[in-house]
């Protein structure tokens, strides 16, 4: 969905840890986080 924001491991799963998001990418990051079915992604301002 947004490879410039979310790093994926060799199997294609998202790499865990904190991600800093550029201002321009905030909307995309928000949509990415909201699409995680397991609700594993949290957004902090």
């Amino acid at each position, binding site marked *: 969905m947004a490879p410039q924001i979310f790093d*994926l491991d*060799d*199997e*294609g*799963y998202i790499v865990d840890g904190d991600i800093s998001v550029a201002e321009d990418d905030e909307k995309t990051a928000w*949509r990415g986080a*909201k*699409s*995680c*079915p*397991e*609700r594993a992604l949290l957004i902090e301002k």
Partner: protein
Amino acid sequence: MEALAAKPVPPHVPPHLVGDFSLFTSPGMAPTPNGDPQAAAAVVHDGPPIFYSPFNTRDGRGTWVITRAQDQRRVLQDPESFSSHRSIFASALGENWPMIPLELDPPDHGKFRTLLNPLLSPRRVMALETAVRERASFLIDRIASSGTSCDVMKDFAFPFAVNIFLRFLGLSDDRLDEFVGWANDLLHGDNVQRPAAARTIIAFIDDLTAQRRAEPVDDFMSFLIKAEIDGRPLTDLEIRGTGVLLFVAGLDTVAAAIGFALNYLARNPQEQELLRGDPSRILLAAEELLRAYPTVQMIRVATRDVDFDGVPIRKGDYVSCATMIANRDPAEFSCPHMIDLAREDNRHTAFAYGPHRCLGSHLARREIVVGLEEWLKRIPSFRIKQGTAPVTYGGHVFGIENLILDWS
């Protein structure tokens, strides 16, 4: 309702929390021409967040029913209190062994998921996509060249899903019809057909294991035979439990999802045209169709007494988390009964939630999306064939039969 009244309700269940809804016996759950069992199940949102249904498993057991998506997540993310070890398959034979990893609890569960996840990871599914698309095109081309009508389930959805599954097992298509028959008997058969199918499937898995043990190839069973957990090889029963789950989980569910999706599109020509005109919409549309027409209910067993917002769940009680109910929760989805093929933030639970989230979800999604893409590319505006009515049913695994489409 007499059948329900005759069913004893455990004494700890407060009478005002006994509901008459059941995924097996409520209106719309029996095989119904032109039915909509998922919408019929959503009536529970008019009632309390949790109630007791006295007849809510195939063998007539009572379960608590959790209606709110948020509460279902609480249950599904707490395997310590709500175990998934029910031996649902083995119990049909009067035996007690788990399907793996579904019926294992942490920490053993995690070891098997770590072993199996890479086999069905997003990356692996990308590698399978070419074969998936080739198969879909082949089947639909055959349908398109032989007329202007077909039974989607028989001619496309099942042969497609079963072929991908057999490929995974390293087997050819020769026995495809046989496999479909076994899966059908197992999931939807009566009290004679189910144990018979269970025995047949076990014999088949055991036999395949023996063959691969003698002559390993590059396939799933050979992988299991070589694999190690905690520095030891898998036991025969573990190999069987894993093989059986793959069989049960991979066939019927994908075929049903494709059936429900094409049933919806056949009745909504404008939406069908929109997707056909702009296939990039199919990805989101498939998610919405999974939200609206999921097929599975998760059942957990309480491992201890739990006070669930004041409701007394006792150790041993069954707790049902039905995907079709969570997915129509108005607290999570605006206008849950409206099907909006462009819906965003669509965090539905068609693939469950928590540690047991469907292992094959990435492959299932690909099969559904590719299936719809190739279908819409090759088949012009289609509708339900006049004089026919697809039969839908509820129960343990929801499904659809005889989806006869016409594009003459």
